[in-house]
């Protein structure tokens, strides 16, 4: 095992008490919104914001992420991204 070297770590976003149910739709959306709120408040390099990005990347299907990105660019994203 010691000679095992991988650039990846087996780690994922943990349990979130706000979303204890089977339905995780809002978990994805909330983390996506929180990330962009976070970087508009603190700037893109602010390290704690990365946690939201990790979370929404793990939870949202890639198709959804690109759709959200598109909506953000067009200004039709259905939530406020102001901090």
């Amino acid at each position: 095992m010691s000679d095992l070297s991988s650039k990846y770590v087996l780690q994922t976003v943990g349990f979130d008490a706000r979303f204890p149910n089977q339905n995780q739709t809002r978990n994805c959306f909330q983390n996506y919104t929180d990330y962009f709120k976070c970087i508009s408040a603190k700037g893109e390099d602010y390290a704690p914001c990365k946690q939201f990005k990790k979370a929404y990347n793990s939870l949202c299907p890639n198709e959804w992420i690109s759709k959200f990105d598109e909506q953000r660019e067009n200004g039709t994203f259905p939530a406020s991204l102001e901090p």
Partner: protein
Amino acid sequence: MTNFFLIFNNIFNDAPQPWQLGFQDSATPGFTGLVTLHNTIGFYLVVISFSVFWVLFSLVYYYSSKKNPIAHKYLTHGTVLELIWTITPALILIAIAFPSFRLLYLMDEVISPTLTIKVVGHQWYWSYEYSDFITDSGDSIDFDSYMIPESDLELGQFRLLDVDNKLIIPVDCHIRLIVTGSDVLHSFAVPSLGLKLDAVPGRLNQVSFLAERSGTFYGQCSEICGVWHGFMPIVVEAVSSPDFLVWIDSASS
């Protein structure tokens, strides 16, 4: 002589057999629990069936007009009897319901997962996204999983069941699946892992499982989703976690 004892070793048959009636071999605590619950309820089924049929047959036998010519015209109510046949079924229902609830809530729990895999149902294939790992180019690891058509099958592969890209998972790790659909309803089902979860467009369903042993597990789409509903099977391959990391390294490059 040793061969004689060797036949008592476990052989895991992780693919369904033709005309199979029983369950496939379990690979997760969840499915072991489901099989146990099935057997527990099966026990109550035998008890209830025997008592009901015993009462029925003895009524027909002992109270036929030949054996029992006097009709009990004025025997219309028995409080004790009423109590017995009201309370007993209630207790039996409770005895069935509580193990069921216990299992339901245990399986619903997501216990500190080590890996999240997104499963997306399409017409008519599954695609898997391992977005915990971001490649050097910044993309997530994702791929589509199509059934191998009958003409391309190699010896030992299963017709209508084998796919080109399997879902690879590490054993002994709590894995969270996020299941959704991209067009119509699908259902992600793998019996050996005790999984059956609807893939609903616009909604993310979560389920957790833990593979206790390595193996290849087969499943099929379980929600009728169009003409090729029967041709979008699921293959899950459980490997050791070092092997999993080797695979994810190779999959990302």
